[in-house]
Structures are given as structure tokens and as C-alpha cells.
């Protein structure tokens, strides 16, 4: 359990560090082509080698981390920002028509295949990293709404909520002061999981050309561009693939570790 937390934290931390560092420094200019140096295997000069335009793969992977993390982060913020208040509202008005509308609206969004909707959004608004953020973010909303409502319902029947109502507090204030802090651990864990799913989704959208557009580097597009040359220079495809794999693995381990550490049901009984 500690192991998962440590390993997950290290992997996710590495990806995050690469993304942050790429904002101020990369070994080479990731956009600079050098056809003479194309498809070089990893070496001292180019740790991860070069691609078919002779660009430095390490620099591109670092910038790709930035793109992935930015898209996934904004998508999680959109999902939490709308999903958590909706879930709190549904829990506060449980059993009423408000609850029905919120939860059936959730079902509606859940019912659509997410990739199809993402394609629809990008088809209407044009492919870009921003539209990928919005598309992925929309699918995070019902996830957070459901988790929030499910976690909030058992809190609402506790005596300290009744005591707060006797103290004249309304549903909004109670949700904010009592319910939200007591389910925060669960939401943090869910955010980690959605973050890793967001990275996967961004890679998928970029892979089919609906995410970040050139020249912005992206792991998904690096993978797509490398696939024709996979027999010629396997490292060009393997490295962005490993980046996705290790980051998602790290975030999942981190999520599991956090859940074990934060979930009140797994804590020592009072």
C-alpha cells in the first residue's frame, strides 16, 4: 500500500517535473528539424534519439508531457467544477425532482460513447488542445456528480447534519461546511483517476488527429507519426508509448495509494 503510493508518486512526479521543466528548458528546440540526423537511435547527444525529421525526441516528449498534463488537468477542473456542485445539490435535495433531473441528466451524458462526442465537438469547433480539454471535461462531469452524490448521501443522515439544521443552516451552507470536507478524500482519489484517464483520452484524440495540432508536440501524435516507421526505428514509437504507459500507471498507483490512505472506511475504527 505504501509501495503503490511511493512508486505512483515517483512516476507521476517525474512526468510532472518534465512538463514543468519543458516550459523553461528543453535539451533542443523541439520544432527544429535536422534531416541529416533523422531516425538516430538513442545516444549521448540525443538520449531518446531523433524522429523522421531529425527532431530530438526527449525534447518533444517533455513538451508532450506538458500538453497531456494541461489537457488532463483542465478536464479534471471542468469535471470537478461542475460535477461536484451538481452532486452536492442532488444529495441535498435527495429524492426530489431536482435530484431526478441531475441524475437523469448524468445518465444521458453517460449513455453517449465519449469518443464519438469528442469527435463531434472537434468536428464542430475544429481540432485543438482546447477543444480536447472541453470534450474530456464534459465526460468528467457525471463521474464526479455520481461519486459526490454517493459519498454525500450517508453523510446527510448523520446527527451533526441534523444539529446544523437545528442551528438554522440551509442545505447550501451545510453542503459546503460539513459534507464537502468529509468527502474530500474520496474526491481527491477520483480526481487522480480521472486525471490519468484524461491523459489516455488526450493521447487517443491526438492519435486520430483531433487533439493538439502541429507544431505543439503531443504523445498521441508522436505515436501516430511513428507507426509507419516502427520496423525501421522502433524507439520513435516506443518512447511516446512508454511515456503514456508509465504516467498512467503512476497516476493509477497514486490513486490506489491515496484511496487506501484517505478512505475513512479503511481507517482504523474510532
Amino acid at each position, binding site marked *: 500500500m505504501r509501495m503503490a503510493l511511493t512508486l505512483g508518486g515517483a512516476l507521476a512526479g517525474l512526468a510532472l517535473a518534465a512538463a514543468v521543466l519543458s516550459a523553461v528548458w528543453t535539451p533542443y528546440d523541439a520544432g527544429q528539424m535536422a534531416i541529416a540526423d533523422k531516425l538516430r537511435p538513442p545516444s549521448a547527444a540525443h538520449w531518446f534519439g531523433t524522429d523522421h525529421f531529425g527532431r530530438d525526441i526527449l525534447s518533444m516528449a517533455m513538451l508532450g508531457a506538458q500538453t497531456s498534463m494541461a489537457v488532463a488537468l483542465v478536464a479534471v477542473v471542468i469535471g470537478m467544477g461542475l460535477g461536484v456542485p451538481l452532486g452536492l445539490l442532488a444529495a441535498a435535495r435527495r429524492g426530489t425532482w431536482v435530484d431526478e433531473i441531475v441524475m437523469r441528466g448524468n445518465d444521458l451524458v453517460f449513455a453517449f460513447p465519449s469518443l464519438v462526442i469528442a469527435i463531434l465537438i472537434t468536428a464542430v469547433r475544429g481540432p485543438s488542445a482546447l477543444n480536447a480539454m472541453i470534450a474530456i471535461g464534459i465526460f468528467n462531469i457525471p463521474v464526479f456528480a455520481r461519486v459526490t452524490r454517493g459519498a454525500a448521501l450517508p453523510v446527510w443522515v448523520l*446527527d451533526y447534519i*441534523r*444539529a446544523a*439544521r*437545528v*442551528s*438554522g443552516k440551509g442545505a447550501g451552507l451545510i453542503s459546503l461546511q*460539513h459534507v464537502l470536507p468529509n468527502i474530500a478524500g474520496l474526491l481527491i482519489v477520483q480526481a487522480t483517476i480521472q486525471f490519468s484517464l484524461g491523459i489516455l483520452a488526450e493521447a487517443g484524440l491526438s492519435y486520430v488527429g483531433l487533439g493538439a495540432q502541429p507544431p505543439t508536440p503531443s504523445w498521441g501524435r508522436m505515436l501516430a507519426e511513428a507507426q509507419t516507421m516502427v520496423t525501421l526505428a522502433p524507439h520513435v514509437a516506443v518512447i511516446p508509448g512508454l511515456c503514456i504507459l508509465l504516467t498512467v500507471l503512476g497516476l493509477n498507483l497514486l490513486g490506489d495509494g491515496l484511496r487506501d490512505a484517505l478512505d475513512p472506511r479503511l481507517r482504523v475504527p474510532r
Partner: protein
Amino acid sequence: MIRLEGLSAVLGGQPVLDQVSLDLAPGSITGLVGESGSGKSMTALAIMGLLPPGTRATGRVMLDRRNLLDLPEPEMCRIRGRRIGMIFQEPMTALNPLMPIGDQVAEALRLHGGLDRTAALALARERLDRVGLPAPRFPLTLYPHELSGGQRQRVAIAMAIALRPGLLIADEPTTALDVTTQARILDLLKTLAREDGMALLLITHDLAVVAGMADRVAVMQGGRIVESGPAEAVFRQRRHPYTRQLIAASGYRPARNPRPVPPPLLEVREAVRDYRLPQGGLRALDRVSLTVGRGESVGLVGESGCGKSTLARVILGLDPLQAGQIRLDGQDVTAGRRMPRSLRARMQVVFQDPFGSFDPRWRVERLLAEPFHLTGRPPDWRDRVGAALEEVGLQPTDARRFIHEFSGGQRQRLAIARALIIRPALIVLDEAVSALDVRVRAQVLDLLARLQADHGLSYLFISHDLSVVRGMADRVLVMQAGRIVEEGPPEQVIGAPRHPQTQALVAAMPVIPAEWV
């Protein structure tokens, strides 16, 4: 015959059991009495070989000339259930909610008895009949949620006695139940011990419970048995001061000076509250009328499901009424936002569960100051919190601590402090002392009586137990199925109950026989 000889246990460097010796003879009932943390549950767990990990036990637990403490785990697994059965306090969590009761009882028979499913179910049927869940009304296919708390405890007992163990350990088996249900469960346990020749170890915090039941009584304090012997001798002689304290605390009544005829503060007129349920409507309150005078305490007694908690909620303006009227100080009480804050501020509440009553993430000062939401937080609110803490016998420095740092009794004091802080006229006490040990309960009752005298508070004291209400109430109302069926001063209601429900409640009160006191 199981014999404990010099049983000691150490957990994390702290001694939890100290030289405990007990004889548990077939057909006899031994009452093990003490407060939370006295080591009585630890004794039970030691006999079962279920002590928490890291506990070092020494001494001997002898069964058939074998020391159970020395047996390896696989051997203990065969002894648990087959030779020693155990039931716990909480019947709600003791059963698997997804398994029919017949299968749950049969499981032990199949596991230990090596019976096939048909034979095991036939025997399970017999055991359920034995514990008072007869065949036509209680088929084996029922699920736990279709049963009441008392009936679930009966299923738990059927599971524990399925293999006819020589010893049944009952750890606070009735603390979570109504008094009337408690009386029936205790009766059942007594019958099982006497007729089946089973030894029964009855663990409880209330001496009155064992008074009518046990052959022998052992009183535990701080991991040691401080006094033991035949029940009557222990009650009559009371050699140890702790025994004397426990006896005094059981059925304790604080000193109070009731006022003659107080002017009314709370008036409930013909209140009706209906619930819509999938299987039809339920009338939780059926034209209930009552008054609570200024400075008066009114006790409201009834079994669970009689509507007393619903009544508390509508009085507090948390639930709406379908018909009737509630007036506090001449102003209408209504649910929701229409009720003015100044009116809400005249009522506060103390709940039963000292653990669920407080947000675990808040500090005490913030918790206690929460009712200021109604009145606006005064500039000197920290001093007011400090004063309220002192008033309930805690330290002003406790304000910076978190709720998990307090014991159950201290938490109930904090709940009272929270209710007091805005100086309400009426406090609704919903089973406020039911979850407390007898001695702590006596202290809290004293505190409530003093606060009432100091501030002229009115109490609506809700409980399922007449003996709790008796000491605190000027008037007692008995409720059944949403109606108030009897009303009068406590001496009259308890001494000469007229309604069958009241008679049942009086008969169920655990009392120490008058000639022993």
C-alpha cells in the same frame, strides 16, 4: 466447564486484563459488569482467542483440561462456534444482509457439523423455533432487513447456539434494543441456559440487568475483577467501593425541585405526520397533543417506531406537519425557511449518538459556536465557548481540541454545551443518555438538573426506557403507534400504569430487587 485462571493481557505495553479468574459452570449464568474500557469485552475475546493483534495473554483459559491460550489457530477455529458461541451488541451488523436467515444459521452447522444443506436447514429451522422465531411467521427465506432489531438478535442467538455450545458469551446483547425487547431477549437467554444446560456469560454495563438474571456476578474495573460472588451476596454486601458506585448509579435520580404549575412554553395541538412508503402510508403522528411548561421537564417514552423521534423532528421544525399546530412561546413552528431564526434560536437538541453528533473535522470551538448561526456570532464568542465548556465541567482549553480526543460521556457534555450556548428556552433530549455507562449517565443527569435550575430550561426528554426518564421528568407521556396513550407524574405512571403499553414498559424496566437495596 470453562475456567479462567489468572488471565492477564498486555496490549501495546498497557495491561488490559489483570489476573482475571472466573468459573463458568454448565447451566449457570454469570454476569460480568463494568464500564467501557474495564476489560469485560477483552475477557470475552480472550476466551474466544480473538484478542487484537499484538496482545500478549498469560494465565490459563481451561476447557477439557486444555489451555485455550496455547492452542494453534486451526484448533481454536474448531472450538469457536462448536464449543463456545458469542453474540454481540449490534444486531444490525452481525448478520449478512445478502443471505437468508436460514442459510446463515445453517452455515455453522454445515461448516462445523459436516451436515449437508437439507439437513442443516432442517436443524436451522429447529434452532430458529427455539429462539422464538416460529416457522409459519418466520420462514428460512427471510432476509435480515425484513426483521426488527430484536428479531435479528434472536437470529444471532440461533447462530450462536446452532451447534449447542457449552458456553454462550453475550456481550452487551441488549444495549442497542428497546427495554421491552431487552426483557424478552434476556428471558430467552435465561431459558436457553437453564433448559439446555449451557453456561452463559452475560456482559453488561448495567447492574440492574444482571440483578434479575445472573447466579453469580463479577464486577470489573481497570482490567481486574474487584468483586465477585453469588449475585444476591454481591448486591447485599457491596464490599468494593466501585460496586457501591455502580449500584448507586443504576436507576439514579438527580435532586430536583419541580415547579407547581408552569405557564406553557411549547404547545403541540392535534399534530399529524404521514409518511408515504412503497407499501402504503404510515401515520407516524396521529393527532398528538402535548404541552411543555416553562422550566418543566417532560418525559416521552415509547418503543422504537412509536413516533417519538418524528415528534422531536417536527417540534424542532425539521419536518413539516400534515395537520395540527405547534406553537413555541405563542409563535408558529413551521419546517423550512419560513420559520424565523429568532424562534429557531429558542430550541436546541442533544442526540443519542455521542460519536455521530459532531463533524470529525471541526475543532470543538467551531462545533460549539455553530448555533450562533441563528443569532449572529457575538464578538466575545470565544469567551462564551469557554464559559459553556466550564459550565458542563470541561476545560476552556478543550476548545482547540478535536472531537475524537474525547470520551463518549465528554462528547455528550459537549453536545449539551452546544445546545446551551445560545441560551435556548427548550432543549429536546433525544435518547441523550441512552448510550452512556451508568455512572457517566448519572453525572450527565446531574448536570442537566443543575443547568435546568440555573437557567430555567425546559426539557423534552425522549427515551425508550422509563427508568431513565423517571429521575428527570415532572410529567411522563407514553407513546404507542403515533398516539399518546398515557400521561401523568412519573410515580403514578410507573407505580400504577393504566394502559397496556405502559404496563409493558414498566414490567420491562431492569430493576435491582427492592430487598437487595
